[in-house]
């Protein structure tokens, strides 16, 4: 297996990786303030750089399944077949800012990984398993 050239290899991660046994989890990022709405373009760029750095860390640990998507400020919500809102769906005060998919040994481990995510302001990360008939 090809390892990066860094001097300090995190042996904990290398030893515990049994990729076939790991499961996939979706991380849903909820934010009270979307970066492109509440910040200047420079601040937004800086925030996205911080986020990107964290995602690269996830990639280095070989646990990123999908970069997912960053969701913008425009939105529509349909219910009972009709349009009920213009704008993103607001759950209490939060809006979904994006999602990505990682792999981990358990949902608890996935939640621990999520603790390190550099969210913009106040937010919540929801970890969900992928549907199977068992869950």
């Amino acid at each position: 297996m090809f390892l990066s050239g860094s001097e300090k290899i995190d042996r904990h991660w290398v030893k515990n990786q049994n990729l076939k046994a790991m499961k996939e989890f979706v991380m849903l990022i909820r934010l009270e303030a979307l970066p492109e709405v509440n910040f200047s373009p420079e601040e937004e760029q800086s925030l996205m750089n911080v986020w990107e750095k964290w995602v690269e860390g996830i990639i280095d640990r070989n646990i990123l399944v999908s970069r997912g998507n960053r969701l913008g400020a425009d939105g529509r919500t349909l219910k009972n077949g009709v349009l009920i809102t213009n704008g993103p769906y607001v759950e209490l005060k939060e809006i979904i800012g994006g999602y990505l998919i990682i792999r981990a040994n358990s949902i608890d481990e996935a939640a621990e990984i999520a603790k390190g995510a550099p969210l913009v302001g106040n937010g919540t990360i929801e970890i969900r398993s992928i549907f199977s008939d068992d869950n």
Partner: protein
Amino acid sequence: MNEFALIFRNDFHPEAGYSPDKLQEIMKQWQTWMGGMAAKGQLANAGTRLGGDGKTVKPSNVITNGPYAEIKEMITGIIVIKAGDIDAATEIAKGCPILNAGGNVEVRDIIPMGSN
């Protein structure tokens, strides 16, 4: 063509109240709708259907069990479609079977990452 995320929400464990026949029928409706979009080149990513397990990580790094439960619905899945604009994407979303099952669909524009 732009990409739009469709986020599906419904009551917690909607499938729990359905008979096997009803479940089959709903699965068929989804297959037809997804298949129709794929055939028209509208499906960018068939996405994921989410399970009932969850953990929620809050600002103070407190972790609670279960899916996000601030409201009485949960997210059941996300897909990505292609459309000219958000109104066209919304028209496509109107065909979603979840709308016949008490759920709702949120349509969002996608900001390509690594662009500025």
